Each structure stands twice: as structure tokens, then as C-alpha cells.
């Protein structure tokens, strides 16, 4: 009998601790599938963040390290510069990557550090119970913006992909979503490309995945997916923001 679906090898056979309906599980699977399909399980080293995905080190079967909050790109840099033959990826939330770790993110991109970053944008701090994130939308109600994010008081959300794409350094910056089957398939393709780029030595590749946090958004998983479509994606449009190789090829 043909197997049509099975758990990727790079994903451990353990129950994930994520809330029901949380897209972290889907994104983990996509990363693991990409690793499996590229045959790099044996040489991949993953960097877990501080955030809901903190225990990703238990979920991926590749060698893993747990970085300090926001420092994953620096930790990944240390690993990659020590073992250039290995494939190094980080998996980070928006508080981790775009707030406390912004400097590490921007400078790893500027250096075109040959690593792969999976950036999960759920517009909130999930793990600490739903505080405002650098990516929370204008007007979004969170624990620390209980009257809605007032941009005159605490500023505007950061569009990470657009911002990083202005840099000369990085190879590949793209934003994808996982709110429907079509988008999941596109996300898978982008994640695989971000690893392939590293294998080919092309450099810094970041995939921003527009995700959801039903629990702290105070929604059912269905409502959350709807909100991704109606509110998140118009503010954070999917698309390729930078692809140096493709741009070069188009020029030739």
C-alpha cells in the first residue's frame, strides 16, 4: 500500500505542547519535510528561540541548541562559522526576532550569513500570555495594549521582510502564510528554497510565516484563520521581497 502521508523523519514522535489549532505545529512539519526532502537531516543544526517554540529542541531530531531570547541569529552565526559544512537554521517568533533580537537579525542579514531563518509572525507574544509584539497591528487589543495598539503612543508595527529587503546583504527574503492549503504549499516551497540556498552557499535566507495565536487572540482556530485573511495579510502581504539570484538571472 502506498503511504500518502507520514510524519517526517526530522520530527520526533512526541506530543507537541502547542495549543489546539496553533500553526506552530504546521510550520514545524514544513521545516522537517524540507530537511527530509533535501536529505540534510544528518548535518542540520537547529537553533530554538525563546517563545512558544522554545522546546523545538525536543521536536526536531537534528542536533539542537536553545538560544537566549532574540540571540538565535548570533548563536547560529557562531555555529555556522565553526562548522560551515553543516546546515544551520533558526526558528523564531516576532518578539524574539523583531524586538529584543532585532540587531542580531539585521546584522546577520547584512553579513549575508549563510543560515536559514524561519520567522513566525503571529502579531503577539504567545508564550508570556499575549502582550503587544513589534508586529501587533494598529488597534490590536493585547494584554499590554488593552485599548488597542495606539500608534501615536507606542509606534507602528514593523514589516520585517520589507525592511530586510532594503539591505544589500541578504539572499532571499520572503513572506508566506499557513492559513489555507494553497498557502501552506507555497510556504513549504519557500522554506525548502531557504534551505537549498544555504546548501548552495548563497547566504542569508529568511522566510516570514504569517501565523496565528488563537489562544491569545481570544479566538477559535477558525476565527483566527479568518482574521489572518481579513486583517493580517492585508498588512503583511505574502510575496518574495528579495531574491538576489532570481533578480540576477532576470537581468541576464
Amino acid at each position, binding site marked *: 500500500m502506498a503511504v500518502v502521508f507520514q510524519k517526517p523523519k526530522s520530527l520526533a514522535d512526541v506530543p507537541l505542547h502547542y495549543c489546539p489549532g496553533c500553526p506552530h505545529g504546521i510550520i514545524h512539519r514544513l521545516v522537517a519535510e524540507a530537511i527530509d526532502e533535501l536529505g540534510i*537531516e*544528518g*548535518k*542540520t*543544526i537547529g*537553533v530554538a528561540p525563546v517563545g512558544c517554540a*522554545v*522546546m523545538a*529542541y*525536543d521536536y*526536531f*531530531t*537534528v*542536533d*539542537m*541548541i*536553545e*538560544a*537566549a531570547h532574540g*540571540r538565535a541569529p*548570533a*548563536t*547560529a*552565526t*557562531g*555555529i*555556522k*562559522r*565553526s*562548522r560551515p559544512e*553543516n*546546515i544551520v537554521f533558526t526558528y523564531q517568533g516576532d518578539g524574539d526576532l523583531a524586538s529584543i533580537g532585532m*540587531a*542580531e537579525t*539585521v*546584522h546577520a542579514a547584512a553579513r549575508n550569513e549563510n543560515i536559514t531563518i524561519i520567522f513566525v509572525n503571529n502579531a503577539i507574544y504567545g508564550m508570556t500570555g499575549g502582550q503587544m509584539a513589534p508586529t501587533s497591528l494598529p488597534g490590536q487589543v493585547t494584554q499590554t495594549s488593552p485599548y488597542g495598539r495606539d500608534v501615536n503612543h507606542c509606534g507602528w508595527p514593523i514589516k520585517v521582510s520589507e525592511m530586510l529587503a532594503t539591505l544589500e546583504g541578504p539572499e532571499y527574503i520572503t513572506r508566506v502564510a499557513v492559513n489555507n492549503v494553497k498557502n501552506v504549499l507555497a510556504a513549504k516551497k519557500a522554506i525548502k528554497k531557504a534551505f537549498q540556498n544555504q546548501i548552495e552557499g548563497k547566504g542569508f535566507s529568511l522566510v516570514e510565516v504569517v501565523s496565528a495565536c488563537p489562544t491569545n487572540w481570544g479566538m477559535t482556530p477558525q476565527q483566527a484563520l479568518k482574521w489572518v485573511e481579513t486583517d493580517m495579510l492585508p498588512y503583511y502581504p505574502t510575496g518574495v521581497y528579495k531574491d538576489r539570484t532570481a533578480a540576477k538571472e532576470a537581468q541576464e
Partner: protein
Amino acid sequence: MAQKVLMKGNEAIAEAAIRAGCRHYFGYPITPQTEIAAYMAKKMPKIGGVFLQAESEIASINMVYGAAAAGVRVMTSSSSPGISLKSEGLSYIAGSDVPALVVNVQRGGPGLGGIQPSQSDYFQATKGGGHGDYRMIVLAPASVQEMASLTMKGFDLADKYLMTSMILADGTIGQMMEPISFEDAEVNTYEKPWALTGTNCQRKHNVVNSLYLKADELEAKNIERYERYAIVEENEPMWEEYMMEDAEYCVVAYGIASRVAKNAVVAARAEGIKVGLIRPITLWPFPKKALLAAADKVKSFVCVELSMGQMIEDVRLYTECKKPVSLCSRCGGMIPSPEEVLEAIRKAQKGEN
């Protein structure tokens, strides 16, 4: 015997690190340790190593964390304000039990302080700095020769005990030039089965981590770590005793302060005062036994340091307050003159401390 070369203290650290097999350096510029980075920037690309200037001390220590976890000999260097920023990473490195070498060429503080030599990071180095229950091996060179030999020793101890070794130097020794020899010290290599190398699909995955959400697991981990620290405390204290055989008074000083103190001891001896010097070389583990033994022999202690009085707390603690301990100190970048130290010794003799 190995040939002597004339070197600056900071450069001696860099050269010794390379000789110890360190091929990875991550740092961020700060005075007065710049020569270390400059040396590495020049040498590393020529010998297949990595020198990378990071965007901050926070980034550089987390690069060190990654490289250490990947199993290579790795170091960073900085000075006081930069070490404050590195403290987060030092805590993670300790909590993950990976080896690293960190150099602090101290300058005056707190805050931006000054750029002149200081010893005011003693508390930070020996009592923590970062959060949590942890220790670092703290080595305090008093000469350019020791900048080199303690760096090599530091890498070895770090690998042996899976800890951070910190070289706690100061701006004077960093800038000083002295002839040194790189003894043909053998470089030990250690198996690192825990390192992140990729599983090669041959073994269960390695995880380098400091998170233990179950209280009993975290407690067990800390206890296990402290058992290792106890071995370090038993086996690794290093100190120098100078004119202590018949001493009635004991000066305690490390690093640059110990050189001034030594001159004062010689001068006091010329006046007939029976005084000696204990110079801790490891500040952690502190040479407790030497201090306690001296406490049974001498009448009092004079602690000389470039701070408002930090090591003096350990001197009191480990002499079990058996004898009076007085402080002779300058700070902010000032260095006590041998005359000031001599005066403090005279006062001790008169029982005025």
C-alpha cells in the same frame, strides 16, 4: 628553552590563544583591549581561523555560545562595560555547560567609567554578573608572561570542566610590554561527544540547552554542576607566596596591584618589617587554604586593590576574620604608589588597622 619575544600584554593573550588551538574569535571594539581584536583580525584569516567583529557584545558572546556548542575552542575579549553586556551569554554558557574563554581587560566603572586600569570587576567576575547559580574560573595575570600562560591554561581548564574561563586583567598589563616565552606547553584536546556536529544519522540528537521547566530537574542539574565546581575548588587554586616564611604581616594583592605591593614588601623588609605577600592567581577558585594558613601565622593582613574594596571581602571570609584586614586601595584608574602601600604596611605593624 624557548626564545624570548617582546610583546604587549594584550597581544600575548591573542598569540597564546592561537597557540592553544583557538581558531574562533568574536568581539566588539572597546578600550583598553583593542590589540587583542586587531591581532586576531590580522592572524586568523592567515591560519584558516575566524575573526568576526560582531554588532555588539551581546551578539559576540552569543556567537561564542554557538561556536562553543559546536565544539571548537572559542574566545571573546572586552572591557568592563562590554562584560556587563556579555553577562547574559555567560549565564547561558554556564547553564549549558559548554567551554569558552572570555577576557576582561578591566577599566574603571561604574557606568561608562573611564579607560584607565581598574580591578573593580572582581565582584562581577567571581560572584556572578549574570543570573543564576554559576561560577567561572577567574585567572588574574600579573605579567605579560602570565597573560600568555594563563590564557593557554584557561582554555585547558574550560574544556576540562566545561566552564567559562575568564582572564581578569587590567589596562596596565594589557598595554605593558615585557619579554616573554611561549613555553612549548602541550595543548590537550578533549573529546566533546555532546557537541553539535550534526547527527550524521548515526546517533540520537545532541541538545545544548539551559532550560529545565521541571523544578526537580533544574535543581539536580545545578547540584551536579556544583559537584564539578567543588572539584575545581579542590584541584585548581593557584597563588604565589612571596617572603611569607617568617612573615608577621601579609599583603594580599593580585594582578597589577600585586606588582606595586611586591615593591612595597621589599621596602618594608628593608625597614625591618617582617611582611610577605600572597598573590591569588586564581580569583575563583580563591586560594582559601593559603589564606587560612596565613591567618594562623600573621598578625594582620593588608589587602591592596584597584577598587573600593572587593577582594577584601573574600580575604575576610577565608581568613575567617581571625586577624584584622585593612584596605589599601585606589580606584577610577588611579594606582596606589609603592609608598602608599608601604605606609599601609607600617600602619599594620603599628596595629593601626
